[in-house]
Every structure is written in C-alpha cells, then in structure tokens.
C-alpha cells in the first residue's frame, strides 16, 4: 500500500524553482558551447585537408565511445586536482564536449546530404570554399539538421542531471537532497520528472515552430 505525502512538496518549491533555473542555465550554456564544438568538428570532418579531418574524427569517436559520467569525473576530480574548476564549469565543459561529438555527426550528415553539385556550382560561380559553404551548402544543411539537433539538445537537458555527480545543485541533486529529508521518492521524483518533461517538450515545440519558419522560402 502506498501512502502519498504530496503535502510535503510545497515547502520545497522555492528550492526546486532555484534548481530548475540552474538546470536551464547549465543547459543553455552547454548547448551554446556544444553547438560550437559540434559545428567546428562537423565542418572539419567534411573539409578537404586530411590531418584536420582525422583530428575531428578522433574527437568524435573518442567522446562517443565513453560514458558522459566518466568525462565529468575526469574533468572535475581528475583535472580538478591541478586546476581550480567549479562544478558549474566542469559540468559545462563535460556536457558540451560530449554532446559536441554527437552534434558534429549531425552537422556532417547535414552537409553531406546536400548534393555535391551544389558546391561545384557555387565554386564555378566564383565563390571561394568558405563562401560556398556558408551561402549555399550550410543554409540547406541547417534546415535538414534541425530535427536531429533538437533531439540532441533534449538529450543534453536530460544529461545535465549528471552534473549532480560533481555536486552542481541542479534539479536532480536538489531532488535527491529533498528525498533524503522526507523519504518520499515518488512524490519528489515525479515532481522533478514533470519539470524535465515540460522543459524538453517546450524545446521540441520551439524547434518545430522554427522548422516551419525555415521551411518558408
């Protein structure tokens, strides 16, 4: 028999609210840096200079084949022994480097989905490589990459819960702190789960709206 203790939750709403803001904060900053790393690595993987291509491929393969939790531990506890690194920036670095590897693949797939002839046509019109990339290829690739990118951003928001392991007081950690005080795991984690759901759903809806705008000529 389950006895609900929902009446325990309201007193912790201010704490949960502050934690929600920190989850949003770390997610937004990590999405920004992650996109930057991903865009850079993705573009390096499709450009003609081989050493840089290999470098970007190594980054992607390395990060995609180890757990995020381990990356966070390496940065916070490993590198943290020599460099002063705060839980926030350790988490941002871990999340953005990790998710950047996945974003790189999305960018690469997007660019490769654009017909090779488009690039050739742009070059024959006298644009240089960067101009063709930017004005012709990327503008089409961006549109196609948006749905998978949204999925990745949603993943990142959920993965930010792992920042709790390096003591960043985001939603998950605050949820666990509250649960250790009132011992009502269902009530606490359903509340926390609801907040994650709303954030991620809003992100998906935002991107669908954006997709519609991009689809217009």
């Amino acid at each position, binding site marked *: 028999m389950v006895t609900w203790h929902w009446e325990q939750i309201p007193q912790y709403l201010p704490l949960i609210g502050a934690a929600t803001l920190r989850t949003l904060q770390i997610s937004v900053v990590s999405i920004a840096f992650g996109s930057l790393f991903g865009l850079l690595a993705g573009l390096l993987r499709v450009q003609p200079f081989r050493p840089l291509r290999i470098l970007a491929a190594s980054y992607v393969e390395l990060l995609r084949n180890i757990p995020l939790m381990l990356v966070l531990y390496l940065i916070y506890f490993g590198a*943290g022994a020599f460099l002063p690194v705060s*839980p926030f920036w350790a988490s941002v670095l871990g999340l953005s480097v990790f998710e950047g590897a996945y974003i790189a693949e999305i960018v690469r797939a997007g660019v490769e989905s654009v017909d090779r002839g488009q690039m050739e046509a742009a070059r024959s019109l006298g644009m240089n490589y960067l101009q063709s990339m930017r004005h012709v290829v990327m503008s089409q690739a961006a549109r196609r990459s948006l749905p998978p990118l949204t999925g990745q951003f949603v993943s990142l928001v959920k993965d930010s819960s792992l920042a709790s392991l390096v*003591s960043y*007081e985001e939603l998950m*950690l605050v949820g666990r702190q509250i*649960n250790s005080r009132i*011992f009502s795991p269902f009530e606490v984690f359903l509340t926390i789960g609801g907040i994650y759901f709303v954030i991620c759903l809003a992100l998906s809806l935002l991107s669908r709206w954006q997709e519609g705008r991009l689809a217009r000529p």
Partner: protein
Amino acid sequence: MRSTIPLILLLVELTGCGGPTPGATRPSTLDRILTTKVLRVGMNPGYAPFEMVDVHGNLIGFDVDVARYVADQLGNGVRVEIQKSDWDPIIANLNADKFDVILSGMTRTPQRALRCSFTDPYFETGQALLVNRAKWKPTPGLSVRDFDRTGVIVATKLGTTGEIAARKFFRKATVKTMETESDAALEVDAGRADLMVYDQPYIAIRSQEARERTFALLDPFTKEYLAMAVRRGDTEFRDWLNLTIFELRASGKWDSLYQNWFVKMPWLDQVKRPSS
C-alpha cells in the same frame, strides 16, 4: 439445518473473523532466516572503517564483523550475505525486502524511524571536521563556530547525518553535497572546499592519510548513535537483535572489534592501493 451452525463457526474460525488474529500475518523474518540459513545484510560500502572494500574486492570492516557475530548467534549454520546498496535508497531497499537488516553505520534519527525501525545503538559517535591546511591554520582555539562564515565551502555526503549537521551548524557557509564520503574528502584535499563534515571515525582515518594537505578537528560536535534498522513492525527480529547487541557488548567482543578496527588498525595495509 442442525449442521449449519457448526459450519458457520468453522468458517468464522478459519477466516479469522471471530476476533483479533493472534500474531501478524506477515511471515517472521527470524523464522525465514533460520529456514533459509541466510542473513541478508544491507550495506553501503565506502564508510571506513565500518564497511570498505579491500584490495581483493572483499567487503571488510567493523560492521561486517558485527554482521558475522549476529549470524554466529543465530547458529544453525546461518551465513551472512551482504547486499550492497547506494546510500540514499538504502531504507527503500530494506522495505522492498532486498535484505533483512541495514547494518551500515546508520545513525538513528526520528525522521528515518518513520520509515524503518531501529535497534538499540551498537556504536556511539559524532560529527567531526576535516580541514584544508592551505585555507586554515590548526590553531589551538579553532572551533566549529569559526567556520560558519559566508564564502566558506563545507563538503559532506548526500543524505547523511553529516549533511544534516552541516546545514544546521554552517548556516552562513555553502554546503556542497557529494556522492560518496571519499568525493567529499577529495574536495578538501584539492582545496575546492574549506572543510568536510562527517562522522568522527572516518575523519580520524582520512586525516591520517592526507596529513600534508589536511588536519582534523576530532572532538565530536554532535552525538550520534549508530543502530541496525529493520522493517517497521518487525518487532520480533528487532527484539532479538537488541539482545544480541547487548551480548556483543557484554561478552567483550565489541571491545576486541573496536581495538582491531579503530585502535590497532592492521587493516590499513589491506585497503591501501599499491601506489600510495
């Protein structure tokens, strides 16, 4: 028609409708242990010297020996089966019948006792401090109060009485909750926290290990009583454990365990990594 009355009486008796049922319907934990010959003990390893993993991966510690003592008292060839659990869901795991008793250096508190039932204490301790040497100097008058300032970072383990004490005694400081006690100690080692609040025995050992970077304030500033926990309402098993804890102390076994795990500490070599 005559035969119906005894039949009704029989039904009343069988279904237990006739009055209060003698004894609870839940099967006796004690009987089940004696039948299966297995005492399932829930532990959260990492809390030296109560439960820790040695170089071979075996669980050793004061609590492990107490569990063995309990099994010996059960007799009948009962053996200990240790079930590892994370700390914050350990009471939930007990209630989910993953083990019969929690023996994991757990402090009894009224809040926890709403979810499980505690035995008499088998160990008395309190909270102590592990302090970073680069940030604080070990002066004679230094006390707990001196650390309650804005800007001071206090590390502890999530969901422990260390966290409760940290939030109570360091209201102006920032409390940082870590996954394990060794993560919290690392925060102090690396200077990411000024100090760590945790149970005195752990702080005593940890400060020995990192003497150049940390020092300890070992006088406990809280009083805590470690006890075993059973499921709420499991009074028969709890009563039996209480008697066994009394015997543990009366027989002198407790003192010899204390000597081994807290005074002579021959086990230090067993948990040391080759490199350190």
